[in-house]
């Protein structure tokens, strides 16, 4: 009790020291003060933070607020998948704060009300560049991880269709091409995030790796992953086996499966890869892409598939394209149809306010004019309330 009182005394001093808060914000602060006295005994924070660290409890009143993910959880839940700039921000601020926004809340309601006996519903998050699609996906991944789902997170499908050094002919199917490096790095990260599931899930078939190695039926899936990591040649096939097993077992099994793919339009676009005779490689000729496409069909149940469209890494697509049909093309749209489209807009005024106050509070905005009302309006105008633009503008300030 005494601790919290001391916190209350410190806080007005901290806030008055050079920060310009709105009167409205001050009122909210005072209301939060009374709330904090009753509930959490931890260090009270400003209005744009929320103490609710479990995404499951995020609701509309938390909209526009930032919640933080504990750093040790980050390593297990997000071994890959966070945007690069956000990772840098985590290193700088020493905390990972994610904003709670409406599209994510909408997805939470859908996921909570899914009927796991029905075929998996596909959700496609789309929006203009830099509006927060990947961050929404990460928020969702965190939620599902907390809820105990098995998360199959493909951080950027575009990485599988471009800049690939080694392409091996697949031993399983002569027509297809393997990508050992990409497959093995993905398997490594998949292992870190889903250790305990891999021990529990058992294979249902026998798998032969080449002429000598084999994995018997009934062995834990971790063995398949180990095989893929040990023998890099078989990594892509190991990925295929993992996906197949998960798909078959999610219906009956005690776990829920979330397939989270970022940049799903890469699966149905073009690749920049070339075979040895310099002929272009179609996406379906890649084992990884083929298996992931099968995963995104809705012929399995017991989970959901959430995907994001991304123009940023997209190949041969104009930079102004952001709508589903433009980025997915006819083939992709037909493959994903029927899906639930979820648009992600730019920051609303309240969200912008939150983000701005966060940067101020973390002393990220050092420019003397940045604290003023005019500075805030200038930032709002220059960034157009676009999260990425705001992030980039705030950098040099």
């Amino acid at each position, binding site marked *: 009790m005494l601790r919290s009182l001391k916190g209350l005394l410190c806080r007005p001093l901290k806030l008055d020291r050079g920060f310009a808060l709105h009167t409205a914000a001050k009122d909210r602060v005072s209301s939060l003060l009374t709330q904090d006295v009753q509930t959490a005994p931890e260090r009270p924070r400003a209005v744009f933070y929320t103490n609710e660290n479990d995404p499951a409890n995020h609701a509309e009143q938390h909209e526009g607020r930032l919640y933080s993910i504990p750093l040790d959880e980050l390593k297990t839940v997000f071994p890959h998948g966070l945007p690069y700039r956000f990772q840098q921000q985590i290193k700088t601020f020493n905390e990972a704060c994610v904003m709670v926004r409406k599209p994510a809340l909408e997805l939470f*309601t*859908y996921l909570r*009300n*899914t*009927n796991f*006996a*029905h*075929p998996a*519903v596909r959700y496609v998050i789309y929006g203009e560049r830099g509006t927060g699609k990947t961050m929404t996906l990460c928020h969702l991944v965190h939620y599902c991880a907390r809820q105990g789902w098995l998360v199959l997170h493909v951080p950027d499908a575009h990485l599988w269709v471009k800049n690939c050094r080694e392409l091996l002919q697949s031993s399983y199917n002569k027509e297809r091409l393997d990508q050992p490096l990409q497959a093995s790095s993905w398997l490594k990260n998949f292992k870190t995030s889903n250790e305990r599931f891999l021990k529990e899930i058992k294979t249902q078939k026998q798998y032969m790796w080449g002429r000598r190695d084999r994995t018997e039926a009934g062995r834990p899936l971790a063995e398949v992953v180990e095989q893929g990591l040990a023998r890099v040649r078989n990594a892509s096939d190991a990925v295929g086996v993992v996906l197949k097993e998960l798909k078959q077992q999610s219906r009956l099994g005690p776990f829920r499966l979330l397939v989270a793919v970022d940049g799903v339009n890469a699966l149905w676009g073009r690749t920049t890869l070339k075979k040895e005779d310099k002929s272009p490689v179609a996406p379906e000729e890649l084992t990884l892409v083929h298996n992931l496409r099968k995963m995104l069909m*809705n*012929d399995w*149940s017991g989970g959901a598939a959430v995907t994001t469209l991304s123009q940023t890494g997209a190949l041969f697509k104009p930079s102004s394209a952001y*709508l*589903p*049909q*433009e980025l997915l093309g006819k083939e992709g749209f*037909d493959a994903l*149809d*029927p*899906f*639930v*489209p*979820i*648009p992600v807009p730019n920051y609303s005024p309240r969200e912008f306010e939150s983000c701005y106050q966060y940067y101020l509070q973390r002393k990220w905005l050092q420019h003397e004019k940045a604290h003023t009302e005019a500075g805030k309006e200038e930032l709002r105008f220059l960034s157009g309330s676009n999260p990425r633009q705001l992030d980039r503008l705030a950098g040099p300030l």
Partner: protein
Amino acid sequence: MALVGGAVLGAAGHWAVLSRSCGKAVAAPLFGAAAYSSVPAVSNRDGQQREASTRRRGRTPQFVRQHLPPRTEKMAVDQDWTSVYPTAAVFKPASVPLPVRMGYPVKRGVPPPKEGNLELMKIPNFLHLTPPAIKKHCAALKDFCTEWPSALDSDEKCEQHFPIEIETVDYVSSGTSIRNPKARVVTLRVKLSNLNLDDHAKKKLIKLVGERYCKDTDILTITTDRCPLRRQNYDYGIHLLTVLYHESWKTEMWEGEKTEEDMEEYIWENSRSQKNALDTLLRIKASENVSDVTKEELLASEVVKDYRNSVIALKNEGETEKNMSLYKESVKKLLNMQVLP
């Protein structure tokens, strides 16, 4: 006068004078100063004195011509302009009472005035085609015209009775020949809604004519100029229209091989989207252990119809906010996603 005197005398000494004066007279115009070109090289006081003296020497006082004031100063405001410019003529600055300036201005200056302005003289002008001139033309041509039929008093009636519009151009020029090769071009315009075409025929006709059809105005334009005479081109145009009409009504055997890429608009029946939707619904029903649900029943259900309309709108009209939200709602209903508030 010195020149004339020199020529009459013909003495050698006078020749010298003559040549000297000639030389100076020829040189004199070179020193004429232009209002807006660069200043000539000789610009100091000595040069000016020399220039003035040569001018005076070259021209005798009797030959100083009085420049008459331009005609524009004598023009009344309500004059008959058609008599000033009855035909197409060059721009005459003294005849046009407008303070027009044209050309690229010098630095910190204005465009040059109309006097001696080559830019104004180069371009075609329409000073001979002012509204009073046109009125006079029409009045003169009226004697050669017949009365407009009184029954055709509105555009709709004209279109109803005369759906095909023929356009030909006659050319008149001042030259030795009355022929103009451009006069043989004939343009036919017709609205497809006036032709008796069913759905297949209309699509086939549009595919056959290609660029000659404008979707916004629904007008087919056929331009013919392959024959040497206008009448022949007109006949050919009418023949083309007839052939197109009849061919589009026929259905060839190979038209059955029309694939999805050839379709002009999106048809939901037998499309991938329909297949996906049916598969999903069948799986949902199977999971709920509801069997004996036929495809026709599913297709006739409300949710599927809703979904079908939203997909068709999305594909045909493109993606807008409204279309996307309609699609979202229809998919939610299709997949039975009840969202509890």
